[in-house]
Every structure is written in structure tokens, then in C-alpha cells.
């Protein structure tokens, strides 16, 4: 069933917000104001949004070190995220988490995660909770092609099958685990095949096509919400930046990113399809672009001028109370 125009526009807005958030961070990082390690999601937007457009606040996701896109797609406040990345007191995690640990329980966002393979077992736990409550909700574990080689992920997949947990494993194969190609590091080169080996349905889709991801997620949800247990989506995608900001990307052909920006840009692909099919017009999409640019500008300005945490904040939130 085709999505109505307001839903299409919302999906576009989400993807565009992620894109501009990341492209802007890439620029702002040059100023030296942003601490720590930052891993950008540009290029993969259709995956986060194609999946999360199906979810509400009461569904759960567990994310990765490359988590900004998942956070935005799941509804985290963009300015709160920007403040967090700048290490400010009013950031979503009070500055204590930073880029790799953005979380918002009220939005069903169980956290970005700086440990590759850290998220999937947590997502299975969330799925068990959904099943226990019989609330019809699901949990999604996002991971990259790198995470599909971690034992923790295998254990999470098996447990989800054993318990028929309403969990959905989404592997975003962007071609690289850090500085090494997935075509080397993923032994079978077939992540979906691995998932089938654990006894769950799995499909591979074009991660630069919002509609392909959205349709795959619809099937996974149908299964999970009707007691069918877990399934896996392997989305073939690309990242437009390095593993982390500052990575010279020596492992990629010099023209690869430029080529992928031409041929695998999910925003361009989306726009071409919805305008060709007459579902949305350029004017509406351009208006979203302008709106998003304004939001990102405001969030950066807010982050720059926001106050840092105080000394007293260092000792809070280790436990409920001391």
C-alpha cells in the first residue's frame, strides 16, 4: 500500500535532517569544538528512516557507534543531540555520553553504543519485555557489517529465535568494518544467510532505497507482531565519510565516495521517485530542505552557546543516589 503524501514528506524530512545534521557536524568538527570520536551516518539514512517510520515511541531500538541517524529517525530531539555531541549540560545525556552514547528512553532509544556487538543482546531483552507485556511492540537491533562477526550478535540472534522474541535485526552493510572491507571480514559475505542459519527469515534489500527498506521492515514487523518471532534485514548501503572523523579512508578507491554520492544517494533516489510518480512535488521537498537547514543552524547555535556541566555534575547519576 503506497504511503500517503504526509507520511512520505515526513520520511523525507527525517532523512534530510539526518543528512544535514551529519554534513554539518563534518564541518563543525574542523573547529575543534567537538570532543572525542564522531562516526557519521551520511549515506545510510534510508535504512534508519525506512525502519523507524514503522515504529512508535513504545517500540525499541538499540543502536551503534554510528548512531546519530538512528536517534533522529526514532524521534530524539535534534537540538538535544547537538548539545550532547558538544558536551553540554543540557544535552540529551547531560554531556556524559557524547556522540557514541546518545539515548532517550522516552523515545524508545536504548542508546548508541561504543562496543561493536553491544546492542543486539540488549534489543533481545527489550523484545522479551515486549512479549512479557503482550503490548504488541517490537525491538530493533541495528548493527553494521562489522557487528555481524561478533559472537555477542550470534548469541542474541539464537536467543531471539529460541524465545520467539519480537526482535528485528537490521544489518547495515556499508562495505567496511572500520578500515577493513566487509568482503574480507564477513566470511560468507552473506549476512542474511547467517541469520537463516539461526532459524529466522531474512532478506537482503537495497539500503539506498527508502521504499525497499520500508517494505522489508513491514514484512519483519508483520511477523514479529503476530508471534512469528525474529527476522533479519540486511541492507546494502554506503557511508559518505570515514569510519570516524579524521579517517583518511585509504581502504577506499579515491573516487568511491564521489561515485556513491552520484549513484547511491538515498535522498536523490527518493526525490526522483516521488516526483516522477507525482507523489510529491519539488516545491514541497524544497520547503522541507529549507526547514531542516534552519533547524540544524539553530541547533548548532544553541550547542555553541550552551553551558557546560558543572563540577557537581561529575558525581551525579552513577547510582540512584548516594
Amino acid at each position: 500500500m503506497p504511503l500517503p503524501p504526509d507520511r512520505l514528506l515526513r520520511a523525507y524530512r527525517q532523512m534530510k535532517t539526518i543528512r544535514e545534521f551529519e554534513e554539518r557536524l563534518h564541518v563543525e568538527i574542523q573547529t575543534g569544538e567537538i570532543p572525542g570520536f564522531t562516526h557519521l551516518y551520511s549515506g545510510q539514512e534510508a535504512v534508519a528512516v525506512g525502519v523507524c517510520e514503522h515504529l512508535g515511541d513504545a517500540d525499541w531500538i538499540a543502536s551503534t557507534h554510528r548512531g546519530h541517524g538512528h536517534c533522529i529517525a526514532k524521534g530524539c530531539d535534534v537540538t538535544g543531540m547537538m548539545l550532547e555531541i558538544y558536551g553540554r549540560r543540557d544535552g540529551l545525556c547531560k554531556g556524559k555520553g557524547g556522540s557514541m552514547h546518545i539515548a532517550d528512553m522516552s523515545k524508545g532509544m536504548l542508546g548508541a553504543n561504543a562496543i561493536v556487538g553491544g546492542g543486539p543482546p540488549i534489543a533481545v531483552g527489550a523484545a522479551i519485555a515486549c512479549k512479557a507485556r503482550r503490548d504488541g511492540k517490537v525491538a530493533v537491533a541495528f548493527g553494521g557489517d562489522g557487528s555481524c562477526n561478533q559472537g555477542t550478535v550470534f548469541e542474541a540472534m539464537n536467543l531471539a529465535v529460541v524465545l520467539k522474541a519480537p526482535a528485528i535485526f537490521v544489518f547495515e552493510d556499508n562495505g567496511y568494518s572500520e578500515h577493513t572491507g566487509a568482503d574480507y571480514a564477513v566470511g560468507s559475505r552473506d549476512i542474511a544467510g547467517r541469520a537463516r542459519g539461526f532459524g529466522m527469515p531474512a532478506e537482503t534489500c537495497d539500503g539506498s532505497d527508502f521504499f525497499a527498506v520500508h517494505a522489508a521492515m513491514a514484512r519483519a514487523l508483520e511477523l514479529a507482531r503476530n508471534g512469528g518471532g525474529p527476522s533479519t534485514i540486511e541492507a546494502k548501503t554506503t557511508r559518505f565519510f570515514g569510519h570516524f572523523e579524521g579517517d583518511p579512508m585509504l581502504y577506499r578507491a579515491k573516487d568511491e565516495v564521489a561515485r556513491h554520492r552520484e549513484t547511491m544517494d538515498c535522498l536523490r533516489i527518493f526525490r526522483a521517485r516521488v516526483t516522477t510518480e507525482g507523489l510529491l512535488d519539488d516545491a514541497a521537498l524544497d520547503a522541507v530542505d529549507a526547514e531542516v537547514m534552519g533547524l540544524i543552524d539553530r541547533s548548532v547555535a544553541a550547542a555553541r552557546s550552551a553551558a557546560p556541566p558543572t563540577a557537581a555534575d561529575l558525581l551525579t547519576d552513577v547510582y540512584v543516589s548516594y
Partner: protein
Amino acid sequence: MAIKTYREALSDALAQEMRRDPTVIILGEDVVGGLGGTAGEDEAAGGTFGVTAGFAAEFGRRRVIDTPITESAIVGAANGAALTGLRPVAEVMFMDFMGVCLDQMLNQMAKFRYMFGGKCDVPVVIRTLMGAGFGAGPQHSQNLYAMLTAIPGLKVALPSSPADAKGLLATAIRDNDPVIFCEHKLLYGETGEVPDGEYLVPFGKANITRSGTDVTLVAFSRMVLLANKVADKLAREGISVEVIDPRTTSPLDRDAILASVGKTGRLVVLDESDPYCGMASEITALAATEAFSSLKAAPAKITPPHTPVPSTPHLEQLWLPSLERIENTIRATVGKRAA
């Protein structure tokens, strides 16, 4: 002697041992980089901080092995290779990632020799990055050496200088027990004199980096640099600080610490690991139980607070022991206020 960085000194030791002994291999994530992908199989990383840059070209990819992101398998495979005749130097990119592979460290490698009745060697080295000060957040900044020191069967080395980086790593590789080799990420660019040629620093032998008579300041890893700075400053005021860098926490040079405390009668321990059950706790307990009659003042601990390492530098800098705090603690311990 030549002036080298900590990073270069580590590379020197690794290369020296790999040339000397063909059973030494390296394995880990992106120790070379560039396998697969679209740029050909040229080296793309050479390790996170470039320590193994150029190694694949010299020693070949059969001895310098890139793995997927798979810490349990990296450490487990290193264990298996060590039991069967190789001397693997495995890399756990950040010490925090040991959470993923702790079984292979605490239940497997640490126990083999003992539970197999002494009938095996376990010549594994785990090289790992640790330490706060990089804004890298709660899962990329921890100093877990005290936890590892507590596990019988593991040796733990904490080089604080380029020379020790070279000498301790070579010793670690030749050691027939598992060694957790902890490299502080803020030390890679530090420079110092490094002996040319084969150079070994024995385990369990502390380095007295400053001699003194008023107070013993025991410090580990990067904290040794701060300890030396404070000692030099206070020396100009007539407070004589003896700085001891134990270099390894297992084995620990208890004799050197006790001899120094016997001389000075005062002890301050400066430790970037956690305040409870950490090295500072251990060494103050050592002085209290073994040198009580020598003590003229209560031993003092300088550690971070009992919290995770915060991401934002505003809090991270408060989390880390500061020069000012070290100085004030020493003044209080020796009973001399700032002039």
C-alpha cells in the same frame, strides 16, 4: 640512544622481536587495514595509532593478521596459538573492549598453566589502549589494569616512557606467561631517549624516576609524568619527593615501595584506575600492613572519583587527577603548606 616517541618505541620492540623470533605473530583489528574494500590491499591503518605501520610489508600478512571485529575470537585464537607454539601479540583495540572477551582472559589464558598442572606455556601478549583525556567517553577511556592485576595468572605492564615501552614490550613478548600490555593513549606522542638495539626491561622492577627523602609518590602509566612534574616543582621549594613507577602491577615490586616508604615515612599513590579496589588501595594497604611502624602520616590516595569516565571534556578534566590536587595532597602529607 635516540629520541623517539612512545609509538616508535613500541614499533621498535615489536619489529625487534619479530625479526629475532619467527614464532612471533600479530593479530587484531586493522593492524594492517585495507583488506577487502576498493583501494587494493595496501596497508590502510597500521594499527589505530600506527604502531604496526609497515609491518605487513616487512613480515607479511601471514604474521601480521587482520581480523574481523571479533574480540573473543582474537584473544581466544591468541590463546590457542600460544598453547601450540607461537608467540602471539594480540591487539584489543581499546581496553574497554575486554568486556567482550573477558572469558578468554580471566577463565582461559590466566588459568591454563595452573589448572593444567604447569604443563604448558602461554606466551600471549595482549596490547591494548587505555586511559582518559581524549574525550572518548565511558566505553573508550577506562583504566582496567587493577581489575586485571587482581586475576592470578595474568601479568600486567604499564609503560610510562618510550624507553619502558620498548623494554617492557620486548620482555612481554619473551615471557612465557600471558601479559596484558597497557598503553596509555595520551602517551603515544611523548618523546624520550630510547636505547638502540636489543633492550629489555625486567618485570617486577620499579623505576625510581625521582629520588627523594620526604615522601614516596607511587604513580602508574601516564600519571608518572604528572608525578615527575610535581616532584620537580616541589623540589625547588625544598620538599623532596621520591617518585616510584612500578612499571608492572603484576608482578609488583613491593620491595622497592617498602624500602622507599621506610626511608621517607610518607606515602602518596597516584592512580588513574578506579578508587575502590584499585592500585592505590592496594599500595596504601601494603604500606599500612608491612611498613606501619615507618609511617609518619596517613597514606594518601589520589584517584579519579568512583564514576565512569564522562565524555564531555569539561567533566573529564575534573575526573582526572590534576597537578594541583597532586601538589596539595603531597603538601598535606608532608605537613607543609604553600609559601
